[in-house]
């Protein structure tokens, strides 16, 4: 998972015959393909799909890692079936990976796929049905089904095959198992490596780099396993060389720094480690679990505790206990678990105990779409507590940002004795890409807690009248003895119901958030600082939004975007930015009512979550566009939505 490699290859393979095309427009792959020549491309999206358990995921991840080692920018997305072991050859069972590789850094999974490898036609159909394949996309398909002993299977395969050809797909059959049988007894198990070999040839990858990757992923197995998998990789490569007349070359991007390939959950785990938080409390929940699991793996070597509690309430309380006793802790969860943590989060706010809560958002409400992405918890994170529970809410905008967000979160939590919620989501959690290898920086660490004796009459909540801040005493600190409470309390932490004391407590806790806000930098606009429209986003949609903005600007639209890392509080200067644009619209992966529904008007419309926040804070008529399909937003979808919005004349807007 955590692949580390020192140098990326800067040169293309030797047998490439044509010079790089400046910018290969979409669809060039098919149009300009000539026998024996590699087609130069700027980018491609490749999918590998199989039944669950057939290894397409491993093949796809390895393909992504090899591409990264070859110097390409990559973004790998998991294609996850709804069940743990879905039936074989079923549409519901499609499992695998999508890899977007390019000659520049990639920030999202992109639009539709250009090439797909399928181990059977059913899993392929799933991708067709979901509209995930480009028209005319290259299809490489296992053809053992053609001669299956079960007539029905053979007939289904043939029917699908003919359909695909008729629909204009560029279909090539590969006798994967037949070929694998020449090297291994159980071809079902090794054909993913054969497929990997085929892809390495198609994309002009260095076979030696691929061999190293295969050796790396099977490092824990004995050498016979490694050898046999490398043999299959080579076999696939050779087969493609002889039989397949497709070759693409995507020049490397100019990365010079050493890279690591990680997904967002590992980035969260690394961030926890780098920030110096050695205590993590969790209760298993998709899609957050792997972050804590990664931590328990690495903590075994570097020291640290991952506590699997009996539920999320207990996990959050455990983390609060640890922070209370002087070791700032993190608890990592997803929607339903985040809901359960609310009561204790409010306790941490009230008692001013630092705490980092990571919410890897998934589709809701309730059990919703447990494995899929949604940005549905923003308002909940900001305002979820009972009573006034001011806390900090920030969102990671990419895989690398997951790492840095956690570091920042801990620093804020300890500096302001507050709760910091970091929002990531299911798409970041499992998407994988190369990022520059982080170099440890002492700036990352929160200042050590001052454990020196305090004056005998020191007050545990000696709130500063301007900033709301107070020095925190931890248990064991001489003269710092006091009894924390979730009840209203005074500066001595004594339970106090006096009207003025309660007013002062709430004011102080609120002022801390304003004080933090004074330290935040104004976010920078992507594109020009004024124009027809400003798109505002948050979280994992950053890459797709900025790609859409580039595309719209290339069309001559004066569109820019702004991405917010801090959602609560928001940095200064945002109002001024919004005011420079004719229209402001948020693009989000959560629910918003659309005026296309007859019953919706300006008085009852429910906006997307960030739009609510911006409208409330800045009194600006912020519009929104959103989708809740459980999938990451695609750049093209955003482009279409913005075009539609800009095409509409202002006077036609209903109800305003």
């Amino acid at each position: 998972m955590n692949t580390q490699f020192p140098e990326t290859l800067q040169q293309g393979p030797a047998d490439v015959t044509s010079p790089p095309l400046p910018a290969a427009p979409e669809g060039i792959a098919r149009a300009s393909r000539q026998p024996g020549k590699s087609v130069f491309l700027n980018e491609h999206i490749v999918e590998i799909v199989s039944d669950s358990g057939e290894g397409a995921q491993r093949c796809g991840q390895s393909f992504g890692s090899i591409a990264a080692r070859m110097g390409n920018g990559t973004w790998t997305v998991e294609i996850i079936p709804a069940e743990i072991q879905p039936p074989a050859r079923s549409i519901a069972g499609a499992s695998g990976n999508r890899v977007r590789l390019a000659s520049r850094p990639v920030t999202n999974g992109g639009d539709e796929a250009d090439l797909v490898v399928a181990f059977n036609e059913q899993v392929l159909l799933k991708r067709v049905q979901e509209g995930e394949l480009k028209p005319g996309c290259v299809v490489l398909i296992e053809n053992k089904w053609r001669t299956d002993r079960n007539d029905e299977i053979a007939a289904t395969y043939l029917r699908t095959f003919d359909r695909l050809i008729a629909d204009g797909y560029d279909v090539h059959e590969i006798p994967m198992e037949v070929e694998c049988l020449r090297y291994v007894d159980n071809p079902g198990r090794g054909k993913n490596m054969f497929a990997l070999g085929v892809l390495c040839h198609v994309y002009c990858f260095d076979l030696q780099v691929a061999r190293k990757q295969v050796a790396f992923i099977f490092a824990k197995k004995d050498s016979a396993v490694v050898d046999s998998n490398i043999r299959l990789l080579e076999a696939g490569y050779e087969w493609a060389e002889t039989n397949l007349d497709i070759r693409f070359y995507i020049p490397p991007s100019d990365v010079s720094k050493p890279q690591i390939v990680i997904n967002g959950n590992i980035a969260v785990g690394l961030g926890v480690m780098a920030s110096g938080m050695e205590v993590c409390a969790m209760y298993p929940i998709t899609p957050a679990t792997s972050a804590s699991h990664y931590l328990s793996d690495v903590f075994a070597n570097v020291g640290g505790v991952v506590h699997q509690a009996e539920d999320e309430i207990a996990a959050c309380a455990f983390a609060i206990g640890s922070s209370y006793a002087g070791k700032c802790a993190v608890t990592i969860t997803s929607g339903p678990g985040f809901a359960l943590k609310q009561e204790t989060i409010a306790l941490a706010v009230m008692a001013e105990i630092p705490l980092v809560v990571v919410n890897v958002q998934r589709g809701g409400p309730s059990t919703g779409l447990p494995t899929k992405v949604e940005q549905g918890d923003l308002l909940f994170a900001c305002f979820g507590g009972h009573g006034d529970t001011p806390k900090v809410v920030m969102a990671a905008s990419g895989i690398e940002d997951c790492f840095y967000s956690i570091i920042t979160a801990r620093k804020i939590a300890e500096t302001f004795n507050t709760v910091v919620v970091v929002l990531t989501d299911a798409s970041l959690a499992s998407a994988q890409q190369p990022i520059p290898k982080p170099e440890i920086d002492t700036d990352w660490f929160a200042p050590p807690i001052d454990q020196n004796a305090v004056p005998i009459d020191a007050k545990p909540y000696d709130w500063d009248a301007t900033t709301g801040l107070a020095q925190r005493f931890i248990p064991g600190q001489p003269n710092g003895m006091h009894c924390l409470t979730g009840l209203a309390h005074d500066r001595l932490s004594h339970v106090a119901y006096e009207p003025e004391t309660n007013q002062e407590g709430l004011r102080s806790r609120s002022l801390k958030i304003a004080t933090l806000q004074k330290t935040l930098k104004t976010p920078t606009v992507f594109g020009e600082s004024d124009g027809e429209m400003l798109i505002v986003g948050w979280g994992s949609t950053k890459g797709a939004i900025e790609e859409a903005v580039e595309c719209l600007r290339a069309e001559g639209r004066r569109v820019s975007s702004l991405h917010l890392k801090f959602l609560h509080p928001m940095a200064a200067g945002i109002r001024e930015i919004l005011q420079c644009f004719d229209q402001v619209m948020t693009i989000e992966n959560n629910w918003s009512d659309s005026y296309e529904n007859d019953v919706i008007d300006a008085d009852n419309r429910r906006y997307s979550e960030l739009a609510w926040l911006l409208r409330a804070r800045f009194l600006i008529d912020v519009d929104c566009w959103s989708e809740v399909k459980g999938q990451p937003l695609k750049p093209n979808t955003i482009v279409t939505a913005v075009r539609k919005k800009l095409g509409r004349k202002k006077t036609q807007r209903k109800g305003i």
Partner: protein
Amino acid sequence: MSYIRKPAFQHPNLPKNEIGLTRRDYEGAMSTLCAGCGHDSVSAAIIEACYALGVEPHRLAKLSGIGCSSKTPTYFLSKSHGFNSVHGRMPSIATGASMANTGLKYIGVSGDGDSASIGLGQFAHAIRRQVNMLYIIENNGTYGLTKGQFSATNDRASVGRKGQKNQFDPIDICSLAIQLGASFVARGFSGDKAQLVPLIESGMAHEGFALIDVVSPCVTFNNHLGSTKSFDFVREHNNAVMATDFVPAREQIHAEYDKGEAVDVQLHDDCTIRLRKLDDDYDPTDRASALKYLADHHDRGEVVTGLLHVDTGIENLRDKAQLVDQPLNELVERDLVPSQALLDEVNQRRRW
């Protein structure tokens, strides 16, 4: 989660039960669990038991939490009512439902994660309150749905799939339930349908909280050598203390009475549980000795199965709450809204 409907075609000559339904009428959608998962055998046993009992499907509600086990109500009794609720909260939902409509039979299906971790508090209180339901825990010692973490019922001696050590002692669901006052406590094994079906029949006929802890191996995450919840381990270490036969009322007359070993426990509706002791030391009516037996034999690495405890003399939640006989959801306004005179009387007390 996907829903795969089974073909509707039925053979005309399938055998029918006393209310004229075939076994197929008690089935559900196609299971999407892993092939070989113990939970599917439990679903099959529930289907078998409901068919044999001649349960009217529309008079039954199946409730569950979240987990692979909690997904199973989709795979049986598709003509019954169901509620796949949230993780660990099914006991409270069942408590509420059983109060609002005492006229239905309730089957709760849960997992060891669902009931022994996140839902332990609610589970304990459903027992304590003697909710009138059959509560089945499909116990595999792991969180199947979230991919194989240790659960709270996993034995200390059990090791994980990748050799991970389990550091904590298990919660024994049956001992806990006996201690909390469950009036019917049994342990079954998903690999032993002959034992399980009569236990389910008896549990459904019992009036009060009936618990069946079914060891139901997770073939994907906890069926390896070193696991104490694997098919092999349970087969080898199964200590069945009690053989249970369920004798429905209609068969009473024909039942052959084999005096000696057999003890009959009379349930309401004239049904009988006939127990044959396989271990002389065991007394299922004595809580203290049952608890000691369970503890001793667990320490020896045995999995004690059978009907472990039964008490038919209890008051269930409906009795305790003094509910009217008619289900609350059938009461009409006339029954519910206080008369003007009664309201006046109440308000009179507030006058000053």
